[in-house]
């Protein structure tokens, strides 16, 4: 399969949910058409009820389309054999809560007909990859926190080393550390040449990892394109530099105004809250007991 070849092809896809009597209740998806290419990270965005999860479930064959066509890895959505090359992380980790981490991965590995040795090796590797603490691996999933359940959910999605990974709200319920790990993992999958389709309404996460996005609203496709192109402000210019003196800043402002620039703003950039949090945690690990409190009122 070449780089430009579509891994997922959706044509005119619609889904109408019906009530008990078969009467149309809600049109969750309306004439959606899109292609997802091999090796890209594609984000499906939209508010709650916009049709993201419905699209994912239609792709996986968990729901049946009312109209339209789906091709995944060249096969129909109803074809079970396509699942050999797909990994799926549901919105909530619907795993078997009475199994422990090893048993969970062993079970899903068996579904892929993996040998005992393969399952063992792959399980250890994945549990390390998702950073599940060794002491937690023998505990039943019902004792896991949401973050831990999410990690084991990701591990089961990757048990077969899939070509296409579908992630439904992958960062929901994760703390900032877990969130960062998840995003790193997605970027790592992309680096390995895998295709990732993720649904999310956490825009910052999507922005960080996705190559292309589609925004759905009311079951309809509203916007689709590359993230960098869609977010580029066409009528503004941004200049970045190392720290300058106040005089230099003033001089630059004057130059910009001479060239007709309006709304000129020169100040220090701020780090994101995520970066600050990660930095604090990192320092706390390296220097236990150290505190760096700047807001004295908050600790009085």
């Amino acid at each position, binding site marked *: 399969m070449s780089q430009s070849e579509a891994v997922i092809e959706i044509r005119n896809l619609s889904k109408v949910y019906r009530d008990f009597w078969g009467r149309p209740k809600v049109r969750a998806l309306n004439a959606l058409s899109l292609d997802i290419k091999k090796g890209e990270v594609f984000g499906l965005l939209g508010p709650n009820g916009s049709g993201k999860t419905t699209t994912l479930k239609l792709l996986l064959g*968990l729901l049946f389309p009312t109209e339209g066509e789906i091709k995944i890895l060249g096969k129909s959505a*109803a074809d079970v054999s396509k699942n*050999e090359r797909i990994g*799926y992380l549901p919105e909530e980790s619907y795993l*078997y809560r009475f199994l422990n981490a090893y048993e969970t991965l062993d079970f899903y590995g068996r579904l892929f007909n993996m040998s005992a040795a393969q399952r063992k090796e792959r399980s250890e590797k994945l549990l390390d990859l998702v950073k599940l603490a060794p002491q937690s691996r023998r505990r039943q999933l019902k004792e896991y926190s949401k973050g831990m359940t999410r990690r084991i959910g990701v591990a089961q999605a990757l048990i077969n080393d899939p070509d296409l990974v579908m992630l439904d709200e992958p960062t929901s319920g994760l703390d900032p550390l877990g969130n960062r790990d998840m995003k790193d993992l997605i970027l790592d999958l992309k680096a390995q040449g895998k295709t990732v389709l993720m649904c999310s309404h956490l825009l910052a996460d999507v922005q960080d990892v996705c190559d292309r996005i589609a925004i759905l609203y009311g079951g309809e496709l509203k916007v689709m394109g590359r993230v960098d192109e869609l977010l580029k402000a066409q009528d503004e210019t941004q200049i970045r530099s190392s720290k300058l003196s106040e005089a230099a800043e003033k001089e630059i402002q004057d130059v910009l105004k001479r060239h007709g620039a309006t709304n000129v703003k020169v100040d220090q950039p701020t780090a994101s809250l995520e970066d600050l949090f990660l930095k604090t945690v990192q320092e706390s690990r390296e220097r236990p007991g150290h505190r760096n409190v700047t807001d004295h009122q908050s600790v009085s």
Partner: protein
Amino acid sequence: MYFDPNEYLLNPFISFLNWVVVVGALTFVVLFVSMLNLLTTKGMSGIGIFFDELGGMAADLFQLSPRRIWALTRLTYTEAIRRKALAVFVVFGLLFMFAGWFMGDSKEIKPDQVKVYISFVLTAISWLTLPVVLLLCCFGIPEDIRLRSIHTVVTKPARRVEIVLGRMIGIWLIGCLVLTVMAIVGHFWIVRQIPADSQPLLTCRVPVYGTEMEFLDREGNSARSGVNVGDIWIFRSYIEGATKARARWRFIKVDESVLDSDGNLNFENSFSAFRSYKGDMTRPLFYDIKLYNPEKNLAYTTDPQPVNEFRHKLDKIPRKVTVDDVQYDILKDFVTANKDLLIEVSCIDREQYIGMARSDLFIRMPDRPFWMGYWKAILGISLTLLLITMIGVSASTMVKGPIAAVLTFVIYFLSLKDNHQFMDQLVFGQVQGGGFLESVYRLVMHLGPSAELPANPAFAVIQFFDWLLNNFLWLCRHVIPYSQYFNMPEFVANGFDVPLDTSIIPSLLVTSAFIIPCVVMGYFALRIRELESK
């Protein structure tokens, strides 16, 4: 003793044909219902989907993976154990700890008490394992759908057939585990409860029943039955003493295997006596047994034997018998060229009667050890568990857990002997008062079951709907299994070995007949529904 095993002559070809018809009919019903479902939900395009899915199922069958099935089996098994299905052992333990208090003095053991002990153990095991399996099989898949755990399974290469099979095998295995542990404990409990001097009562008799029984009336003419002495239950017919009234049995395929180790031919009977006058109540009634071979015009009659009322009576006939000072060999001289042995029983006492049914006289072959029959009875329970599991799992793929449980229980309830036989009577018009609607009409109008009904259009409509209902009942009657085949504990409790042809093979055939339709039903139900919990 009122134990009457069904006459069942095993003809492999006929049995196989019946089996194919049953499997075919069941599968057709399942496919028809699936197609109807698709037609109502998808319209005319449902026909295309139906045939696509049929092809998909055939393709799935060729791609079944034992490893995936085993994975799902293990999952089911682990789930049941971790959800504390084994708590049933607590109830079992309590039952056996205190059962002895209510079951009489074990120092004075009688045959009927042995029967009570065996019945208690096997019934307790059945009624403890059946609900566990029923609940497990009916709630497994619906819970998976409700909690959406099934999403992580069907998005893997697991076929729907594998999911259904994995669930069935897993639940059956857990049922068998529980059953085996209980059976071992139960076996020790029975042996421990029976005192050493009564241990010989723990045995498995091997009967050879006569295939045909006929009567001769007091004039010596052939009759459909003997005399009815007024007992409302017509299980037994009576022959009059000191007349030409006789009861005749034909035993087939008689060879050396029917003789005991001493070379005797043993007849066991449980005849009942009916006195038309009081006479000497301490003196029993007498009968004799005649072996006759019409081909050689040869007959041998035993000495008069007392009727052992309410008890079994064993008559030993030596292989070599003397008739008119000539010695004959029973097997060579009394068994016909077709290997048939003909027996005639007569009552000796004038104006007294002896009652008998086909199963009241049989050739008793060498006994088998108790444990052999006991474990065959456990096999019968395990097959019942398998049948319930298959029905429950396939029902649970279509409807929610509680409904599946009720549906499975109703099918099991209807499969019980009395209910199944009542269904037979309804289907074959042996119940007076007409069908369902006609009966309601008669009740409302205060009309007796034999009263003439007016021939008007309303009644014609009633009869038409009754005809439809009767056909539906006919279908149910043929689809619902007959659990009597699985009732192997009854044989053991009555001191018999479980026969291969009357019980084991029919139950295996019935069970296997349900595998294909149940798997097809499970496949279609999981394929044509959206696996979203609603």
